[in-house]
């Protein structure tokens, strides 16, 4: 369902910086439905990829075969991302906080971590440069603390300073798609507020899943459940082996 909800956020023709897993599913679902001209960019250098199998990594050979362009990674970061050509980027992480800051580096302190996570990858530059960022993550109090242990990728406010003050070109994380609800950044404060619930989910269920006093948006929508076509494509065509939907 998260993949279906994220797919609906994508507009036809948009240049999309794709991560592996759910973002990849969401992009391919959108391509199969309302956005056939979505341009998929992978940090590995595949531009306009058209994979004929579900890629297991962002450097999968199926992203190369039949793509529009394959370029060095320096070009991906300089000429596409920093150049402002990427419309939407996907991010996820072990921790996401009230301001949309994301931690993929460490749980605990940097010097003596409780859990060492993989690190930054291309996430900081996506967070800085993509015109907008969609965050995908299952809801849980552990994953949504009031403040992340380490800001790997900047959200709407970091250490008390806004994106504008910090001089970041992109709009940053504007929406967080979870398995229970959608949070959106408040345009004036940047705080992530509850704007839509999945069918059958109560506001309290979401409140329990975040580590800060959750604000509820002025209009609280209900997310439409997945359509039969969305489910069919996801289960039968895009991920028949249940690699990401298990």
């Amino acid at each position, binding site marked *: 369902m998260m993949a279906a909800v994220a797919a609906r956020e994508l507009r036809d023709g948009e240049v999309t910086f794709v991560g*592996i897993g759910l973002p990849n599913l969401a992009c391919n679902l959108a391509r199969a439905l309302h956005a056939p001209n979505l341009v998929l960019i992978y940090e590995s250098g595949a531009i306009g990829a058209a994979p004929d199998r579900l890629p297991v990594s962002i450097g999968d*050979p199926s992203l190369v075969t039949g793509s529009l362009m*394959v370029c060095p990674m320096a070009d991906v970061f300089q000429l596409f991302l920093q150049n402002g050509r990427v419309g939407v980027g996907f991010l996820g992480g072990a921790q996401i906080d009230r301001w949309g800051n994301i931690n993929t580096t460490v749980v605990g302190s*940097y010097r003596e971590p409780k859990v060492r996570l993989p690190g930054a990858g291309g996430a900081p530059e996506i967070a800085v440069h993509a015109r907008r960022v969609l965050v995908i993550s299952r809801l849980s109090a552990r994953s949504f603390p009031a403040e992340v242990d380490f800001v790997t990728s900047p959200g709407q406010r970091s250490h008390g300073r806004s994106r504008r003050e910090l001089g970041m070109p992109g709009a940053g994380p504007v929406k967080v798609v979870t398995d229970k609800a959608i949070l959106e950044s408040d345009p004036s404060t940047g705080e992530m507020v509850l704007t839509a619930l999945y069918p059958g989910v109560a506001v309290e269920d979401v409140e329990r899943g975040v580590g800060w006093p959750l604000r509820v948006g002025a209009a609280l929508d209900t997310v439409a459940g997945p359509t039969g076509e969305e489910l069919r494509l996801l289960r039968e065509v895009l991920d028949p082996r249940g690699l990401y939907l298990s």
Partner: protein
Amino acid sequence: MHSKVVTMKDAIAAHVRDGDTLVIEGFTHLICFAAAHEVIRQRRRELTLARLTPDVIYDQMIAAGCARKLIFSWAGNPGAGSLHAFRRAVEARPAELELEEYSHFGMVTRLSAGAARLPFGVMRNYMGTDLPAANPLIRTVNCPFTGETLAAVPALNPDVTIVHAQRADHHGNAQVWGLMGVQKEAAFASKRVIVVVEELVDESVIRADPNRTLIPGLIVDAVVVEPWGCHPSYAQGHYDRDNEFYVAWEEISRDPGRLRAYLDEHVYGVTDRAEYMRRQPALAERLGARPRICAGVSYGY
């Protein structure tokens, strides 16, 4: 000009030394496990390993005790989980591995600056992140025209870089297609360069399509011919990525005993990549690529 073709054993013995900063590059594609295994077999120590994605290849080298320090931007097992040898070394008290950490763009910029022999590279990046606090080598520079503050990282100039290519001639003029990662930048940034190839070809094959040449022979010190040298990584047009092995590594690396047994069997227990492949006869059949050959273009005038 004399041929630079040598065995992997001789190439590693001649060019990789204890204490070196070593780069084996390749983003998912063309990661030369054969070279890493030979480094492990020759028991190199105190290496600074640099790579955007340490991947299973550096997890194996860390487990084998080759590494003193890691310079990197993303240390996971893509699509499968963690690098557990890496995590054990970092989560130990005291830590058994020094870390110097950037984002991908930061690593790309370090190698690009190194390749151009500039002392630093510039990005618009790192505002609001804790990375500069974790790594004092992430600094800033002011634009002499606009006054803007930008991120700066130091050049990375490895002692030795190993890149894998689909083909090269015996001088090391190497051609690559599919994902190119930062191989060119890493090779030009490096003091010494080893090129490993799936196929050794005549110079005339290189000269027939010069736009495909990624690494010129004039910066190459040794050429090693090692078919299947990237497994479990892949070589476009030759063989697929062994995703099953990447998934299996999650379990192997989680258990130090199993990891040791893996190295004993597949690294210490074989003399070279040819033997590694002979011992696993099912690999070639399972992963061999179906050909999908593009049309050529005309270089006439």
